[in-house]
């Protein structure tokens, strides 16, 4: 019987070899595919066990950090936001059960430390827990605080501040804000709040009529195409008829033959309406697109949480061949909608001698050992206008602040360039349907001769004008940033 016993043993060895084979297959060869299975929830739970990196403001203020909870296999990290609602936008939140949003979502890979396959394997060998990287942003804590405080006083709206030379976003505030720490308890309620929409980042998603701030784009198209020079005059009567409907100046004031500086300083509708018609739809759309209209802005936020700007018909973007009312578009009316981020990009490009830099919130990625592994390398998105055109626009915009509609934006001792905007939004449901509601804007940069910061402030549901309610916000924010330099 001994021969049979040995053969039986050989058979059992073979059976066990099959077990080793299958175990190897599941645990090593097929492991990657198994981890990607939708029904496999382990990777999701494990992500919770990774020490997610911190998010910091430019001055080192901790915006988000993860704190451990539990031990061993039950260990998990929970996100905390020490500054509460201050950076709710644009940082967003990250909670396992409720998902993530905005900056937290966009930079997830860096925050959980998914840098390279090799280091992951090395960590596994050394038994070291995976640790995420910190990200230092460009955000200016003080200016963000000022912006949000001003907005909370003025009404719903947004402020965006960009460093023109780098595209670095220094401020992105949205009112109504929310406290990301409260997401686990309140996400349902916050989501259902259709009027205040606290989870919507108005700076990137708030598509609003830009009003007269858009005249800067029209002027840029006119100068850039050679249709006008700063000296060119156009007769601006109190009222013109466009597409059969009168287009009036404020108080139907007749300005006579005036040039760009006077027209922009006093925001003369009939002047810009005619300029738009002279420039033509093709040229105007081309300039708009170079400024970023018609596309999702190239910012480091998830593209589904950033809206494009442009002329919309039933939610669809119109193109240069679609019929539009050109004169009304030229003064920022028609069906034109723009986000505060888009208008900040316009302002930033003019401030940066015509070059539009990609707006970015992050500045650098720092690994757990304190080494900077990646640094923001400013890159140009486009050049909407020449340096010469930019200088001419700057001069005109300085007039707005010095003696025009935007005098409230003036900062003592600092030359400021800007443009006001007030779009009438009667019957806006979000504002409660009042008849005298405006969307008030101010867009500009400072110092005008050597721009350090481009800022856009907008307030919705207000009965005041851009120069009265938005310009002071611009001033406070720009001043805070310039003082901090």
């Amino acid at each position, binding site marked *: *019987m*001994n*021969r*049979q*016993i*040995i*053969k*039986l*043993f050989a058979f*059992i*060895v073979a*059976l*066990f070899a*099959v*077990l*080793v084979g*299958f*175990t*190897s297959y*599941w*645990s*090593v060869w*097929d*492991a990657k595919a*198994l*981890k990607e*299975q939708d*029904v*496999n*929830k*382990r990777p999701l*739970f*494990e992500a*919770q066990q990774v020490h997610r990196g911190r998010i910091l403001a430019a001055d080192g203020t901790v915006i988000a950090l993860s704190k451990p909870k539990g*031990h*061993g*296999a*039950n260990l*998990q990290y929970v996100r905390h936001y020490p500054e509460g609602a201050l950076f709710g936008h644009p940082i967003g939140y990250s909670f*396992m*059960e409720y998902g993530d949003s905005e900056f937290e979502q966009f930079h997830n890979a860096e925050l959980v430390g998914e840098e390279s396959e090799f280091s992951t394997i090395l960590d*596994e*060998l050394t*038994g070291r827990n995976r640790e995420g990287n910190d990200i230092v942003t460009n955000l200016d804590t003080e200016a963000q605080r000022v912006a949000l405080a001003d907005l909370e006083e003025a009404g719903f709206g947004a402020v965006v501040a960009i460093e023109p030379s780098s595209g670095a976003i220094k401020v992105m505030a949205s009112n109504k804000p929310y406290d990301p720490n409260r997401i686990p308890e309140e996400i349902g309620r916050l989501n259902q709040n259709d009027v205040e929409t606290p989870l919507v980042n108005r700076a990137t998603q708030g598509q609003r009529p830009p009003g007269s701030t858009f005249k800067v784009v029209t002027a840029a198209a006119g100068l850039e195409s050679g249709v006008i020079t700063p000296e060119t005059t156009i007769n601006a009567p109190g009222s013109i008829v466009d597409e059969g409907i009168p287009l009036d100046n404020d108080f139907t004031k007749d300005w006579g033959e005036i040039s760009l500086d006077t027209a922009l300083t006093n925001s003369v509708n009939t002047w810009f309406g005619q300029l738009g018609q002279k420039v033509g739809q093709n040229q105007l759309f081309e300039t708009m697109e170079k400024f970023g209209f018609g596309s999702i802005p190239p910012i480091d936020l998830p593209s589904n949480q950033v809206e494009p700007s442009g002329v919309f018909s039933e939610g669809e973007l119109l193109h240069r061949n679609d019929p539009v009312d050109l004169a009304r578009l030229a003064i920022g009316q028609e069906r034109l909608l723009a986000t505060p981020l888009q208008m900040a990009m316009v302002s930033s490009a003019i401030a940066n001698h015509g070059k539009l830099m990609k707006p970015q919130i992050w500045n650098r990625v720092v690994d757990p050992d304190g080494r900077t592994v990646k640094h923001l390398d400013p890159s140009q998105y486009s050049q909407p206008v020449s340096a010469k055109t930019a200088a001419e626009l700057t001069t005109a915009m300085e007039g707005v602040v010095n003696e025009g509609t935007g005098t409230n934006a003036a900062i003592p001792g600092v030359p400021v360039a800007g443009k006001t905007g007030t779009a009438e939004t009667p019957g806006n449901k979000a504002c409660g349907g009042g008849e005298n509601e405006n969307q008030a804007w101010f867009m500009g940069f400072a110092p005008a001769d050597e721009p350090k910061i481009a800022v856009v402030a907008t307030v919705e549901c207000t009965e005041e004008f851009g120069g009265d309610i938005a310009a002071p916000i611009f001033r406070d924010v720009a001043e805070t940033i310039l003082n901090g330099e």
Partner: protein
Amino acid sequence: MRSSARNRELAALIPVALLLTAGFTAVFAQEGSRLGNASVIYGAYFFALCIVTHIYLRIRLPNADPYLFPLMALLTAIGLVMVYRIDENLARDQANWFVLGLVLFALTIQLLRDYEVLERYRYTIAAVGILLLLAPRLPGIGQQVNGAYLGVKIGPIAFQPAEFSKICIVVFLASYLREHREVLIVGARRVLGVTLPPLKHFGPMLVVWGASMFMLVFIRDLGSSLMFFAAFLALLYVATGRFSFVVIGMAMFIVGAWFFATTVPHVHDRIEVWLHPYNDPQNTGYQILNSIFAQADGGLFGKGFGQGMITTPGGSTLLPAAQTDTIYSLIVNELGLFGACGLIATYLLVTARGFKVALLANDGFSKLLATGLTAVFAIQAFVIIGGVTRVIPLTGVTLPFVSYGGSSIVANFVLLALLLLVSDRARREAQEPAGRDLALGVTT
């Protein structure tokens, strides 16, 4: 020679106790809160129990195989640490059963010193074995778990009779085949090129086949059914040397299993889940899929003791039945492919030592008994590991000595006792001149 064998056993027990201590230390370190000397105390208790057992073996079975007990102790240590890591209350039960198992181990050795006595009662033992199998279906004491009738509960005591039944059946088969192997070989006829066993002696085979099918249908225990029948075929092959018998037996089992798989919903479902686990991933496929996902997470080196995830952070079950059915998946998860290979190698070493006992044994009954006990042990390990790695359909068989479960631990210690009894005699007869009286009187 004799003392050297026991000395090797003693030497082998030391690393086992250290491993248990290290394992507990690792789990404590993971849990963070209690890093005291508890792991050393547990290790010392464990070592003390092993030493007492060892001394008992020194007195009673001085010639027995020196590696089997330390290997089983190693498996028990792995089991205790893993179960502790899952739930410390379960580990306390497991430790108690370990002690009870050792007591029954000692009793078996004490009472069955002349284990041939088993041959005399073989039909009684077979009847007890079958009765044990039937018990879970008996009203009042039977229990149904996950659609299978595996448990019996009499008063406060609950146990899984199949664990004990397997020993009874092996004893019976070893005895029966010892007596009938000659006629089975000689009486075999060739029909159409296939060697068939003589009809007269074919009966008992049909009985065992019938019992397996019966288990499949009435106990709904696919795993035990497979295990029993495989052990039977292994014994039949070793006893007769006729491979054709094995082929016929396998064909019968497959035909029977296929028939019941298509007619009995419970069996059908098990096979369906095995073939297509992704059809219903949240329900029927949940256990096998998460068993495999847990292994995928283990990789080569595993996540470390206590690092694996058994429940979701929300508290619901992620790896169902981690302490019993899927304990192997948890081991792959935490100790990786290398740890799992170590475990499989341990089972293989037990199997090798068991068959070595069978090889050394001088009489047919001892040979077949050792072969049968070893085979049923190895096949049980294969059935459950194969189940959680999707080699075969997943069933509720325990992983011997490692899974949580009193019946399994106690029954396997009885199995070990029988193996050591056979081993002691075989090695004694092998090393000492025949004819000397060695019946008794070995004292230290």
